[in-house]
């Protein structure tokens, strides 16, 4: 099932949630949606029998550098063998996205990592805390942001070389 047909199915159901569908993007077309509608779209994509996207391949946070953060969902269907790309863009000052942890359990750790690295808050996530960085890492500093400054000291240890 091609990406454009999947797009049609989503458009028919969630008309207002769609921001942009880029069919001719390099390598894979993707669909950008509004941050507060992500969970419903994902549930629809998973429960629809002939879409059956039951496998979340990868959920990655991205810092686009010009003050917008993004979350990219790569999903795949085991039954039909087709794949789809969903994108969400939020601004840096209120980076809130709906959590899809209830749809795919593998999103749990991916979202915690996106929060840990970019500071994207996933509302509805059971326990959103840092996963890779130490728990007492300073609150506002998210390492993978483009404007990240390495702290001079951490617990008495000099960090830069």
């Amino acid at each position, binding site marked *: 099932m091609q990406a454009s047909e999947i797009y049609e199915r989503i458009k028919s159901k969630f008309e207002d949630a769609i921001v942009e569908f880029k069919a001719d993007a390099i390598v894979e077309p993707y669909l950008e949606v509004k941050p507060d509608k992500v969970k419903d779209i994902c549930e629809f994509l998973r429960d629809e029998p002939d879409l059956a996207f039951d496998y979340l391949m990868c959920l990655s946070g991205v810092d686009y550098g010009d003050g917008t953060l993004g979350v990219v969902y790569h999903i795949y269907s085991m039954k039909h063998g087709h794949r789809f790309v969903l994108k969400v863009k939020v601004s840096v000052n209120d980076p809130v996205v709906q959590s899809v942890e209830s749809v795919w359990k593998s999103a749990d750790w991916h979202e915690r990592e996106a929060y840990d690295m970019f500071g994207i808050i996933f509302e509805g996530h059971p326990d959103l805390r840092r996963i890779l*960085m*130490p728990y007492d890492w300073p609150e506002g500093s998210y390492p993978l942001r483009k404007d*990240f400054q*390495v702290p001079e000291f*951490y*617990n008495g*240890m*000099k960090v830069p*070389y």
Partner: protein
Amino acid sequence: MGLLDKRFESENIVITTVEDVLNWARLSSLWMMQFGLACCAIEMMAASASHFDIMRFGVIPRSTPRQADLMIVAGTVTLKMASRVKRLYEQMAEPKYVISMGSCANCGGPYWEHGYHVLKGVDRVIPVDVYVPGCPPRPEALLEGIIKLREKIRRESLVKKKLPPVYVEEK
């Protein structure tokens, strides 16, 4: 060196012979702590496997820090792990030695420039006796590091280190 360390003022025939025997005992049965962090741990396992048998030097992997007297820091020490490495080092019984294996443990290795979470060298947390360079070092390089450590232990002495003479200018 535990009970008798640095207890004696001067060297005499009895001390030097006792020193040699105890140094020989300590260097020929260095019990290693099973403590692997990253890729160097795989090379450490290969060193204790059949091809480059580390047990030929009397190095037996022990699982608890209490019974180990050689800690091989094999891999990248991150900031989150640094306090653990320090605590493990403190739990070891006194005559303890540390081999820093691999570039990451020596000075942060490939992660020294942009590694915000990597500790730049384990010698910032615990004193290191021998640095084994390599990324990861060959098992033979680790064995050579152990031989170098054995040389260092052979030269250790019970006598308190003589401080360098202090030069006082003439009035």
